[in-house]
């Protein structure tokens, strides 16, 4: 039984989905749903009926683009049939530069060394006291400062006259302060580490934290010394604070008054003179101001 005739008749009813006449095959960037047609434009047609020519050209290219898209592998989703697109080939510029990686915090380093993995916890926890589910943290959570309990037993070592409700509130405040201090410390150490280890930051990896802490500590100690010197008497007559840092390595060296070798003294004085009024020393003294000052004094 020859059905080809029937098939032909059936096919004639519908318009074709193939497109002829493309000398250069189209280039596709399916990641961006783009088709690029390098075939030359028919200038005569364009002049005669511009809009119709553009519409028919676009229709042909859209048909070819859709033929390609429909050949992609598909998966069925809640939203219907989805076509899996490849990655785009056209490079489009970003709007912001690549993010700089943040250095590891003290906890992250410890967790990595111990192999501690962060597991997500449920928000609601069963509270045995009340027999219902409460949030693990936040508003009306079980993590509260505990001053809402209607009765608090005095712990075995504490002063019986102490206000336990106050004690609990103070304890929570202390915990918050401690946490904040740690967060600040992490931020400062991260800033120091990023500044010191610019090479790995620019490569896109996390900077090395090992020297950062030592550097930060040194920085803080230096600042303490500077502030100690910033009193009216340069820190000489201040009361000594218990447990204070003693400045290390600051010892004044005095040259003897009478030396056999006077050339050293001469050399020293000449170098000072050079620096102040010599050719290299023009930046040290503002000559104009100095002249003005001496003139006004006179």
């Amino acid at each position, binding site marked *: 039984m020859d059905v080809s005739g029937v098939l032909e008749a*059936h*096919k004639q*009813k*519908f*318009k*074709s*989905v193939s497109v002829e006449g493309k000398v250069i095959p189209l280039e596709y960037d399916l*990641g*961006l*749903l*783009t*088709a*690029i*047609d*390098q*075939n*030359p*434009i028919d*200038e005569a047609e*364009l002049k005669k009926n*511009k*809009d119709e020519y*553009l*519409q028919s*050209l*676009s*229709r042909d*290219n*859209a*048909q070819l*683009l*859709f*033929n390609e*898209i*429909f050949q992609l592998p*598909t*998966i069925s*989703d809640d*939203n*219907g*049939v*989805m*076509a*899996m*697109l490849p*990655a*785009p080939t*056209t*490079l*489009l*510029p*970003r*709007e*912001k*530069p*690549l*993010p*700089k990686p943040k250095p590891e915090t003290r906890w992250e380093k410890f967790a990595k060394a111990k192999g501690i993995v962060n597991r997500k916890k449920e928000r609601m926890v069963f509270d045995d006291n009340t027999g219902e589910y409460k949030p693990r943290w936040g508003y009306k959570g079980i993590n509260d400062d505990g001053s809402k309990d209607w009765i608090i037993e005095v712990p075995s070592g504490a002063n019986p006259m102490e206000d336990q409700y106050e004690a609990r509130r103070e304890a929570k405040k202390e915990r918050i302060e401690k946490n904040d201090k740690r967060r600040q410390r992490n931020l400062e150490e991260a800033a120091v580490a990023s500044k010191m280890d610019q090479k790995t930051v620019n490569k*896109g990896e996390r900077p090395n934290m090992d020297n950062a802490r030592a550097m930060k500590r040194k920085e803080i100690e230096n600042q303490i010394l500077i502030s100690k010197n910033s009193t009216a008497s340069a820190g000489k007559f201040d009361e000594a604070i218990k447990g204070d840092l003693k400045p290390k390595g600051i010892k004044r060296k005095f040259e003897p008054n009478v030396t056999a070798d006077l050339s050293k003294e001469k050399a020293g004085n000449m170098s000072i003179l050079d620096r102040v009024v010599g050719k290299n020393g023009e930046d040290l003294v503002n000559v104009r101001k100095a002249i003005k000052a001496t003139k006004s004094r006179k």
Partner: protein
Amino acid sequence: MLRTITPRNARVKRVLKNREAKTEENIKTAIFIRGSQTSQIVNDALADLYMLKKPYAVNFTKKNQIHPFEDHSNLQFFSQKNDASLFVIGTHSKKRPNTLTFARMFDHQLLDMMEVSIEKGTPMKDFKTPKSAIGMKPCFMFNGDMWDQNPHYIMFKSMILDFYHGQTVDKVALAGLEYVISVTSGPMTSEGKPGKIYLRTYTIVLKRSGVKLPRIELVEMGPSMDMTFGRMTEAKPDVWKQSLRVPKELKPKKKKNITKDVMGDTVGRIHLGKQDFDKIQTRKMKGLKKRTASTEDDKDSSEKKQRVDDSDDEE
């Protein structure tokens, strides 16, 4: 110019975090600005381009004294305030009539910009046809042989793709491809200058075709613009290179030890370790055993047998 905002509540903190640099970026927001003098064509064009870009678009309704090619410091301020990296500025003057300037920012600094002047424009409202929904992902078509050659065309193609491609996704719903933006390059002028470009927007209608692939029909939706190129500021090469950098997480992962040979078959390499020949267990391999006296006698008798057989054969 802009004060640095320190977050005082969680909502502001979330917004600031969203505006930070990320590995996978947000969809770029575009700002549509009117210059000090605009014409009807320019206003219509800006309105239509704004509708196509919604919801990632900001429309400045008031007129601004802005001349991007002379002074682009305003653009930096707008970009930082609105967290936008794309601009379309519409102006009209006797010298440059019906002009649109497309500009892109990188890190809130000007990356590149180009000027086009509209010769003829038909807005969306003049086409009495159904329009696609707001926020759909369009298909693109670039017709003509100039799109890879001339720098004007290269930048325009990059701009159009950057403006309207929306989110880069790895899958798309086949029913959600509603409209197509088609840009055709006309012939070059007699002086050798770039010719006109024709931008058309159509909605896609899928028709039955008797086979699995549908027949596509297009209905013009607007806007439709015939444009010529104007001035252009290309990106500085080092900034351009920096803007194209892909973060390590998004680079495609290489599969090691798997290759395709000439015939197209997938071939893999397995690396076995080094074998220590001193430690091979040879005691349990029969073929390596030395022959003892009893086995030698058997051999002699078998040889004798053979000789007798041979003599028989000879007879």
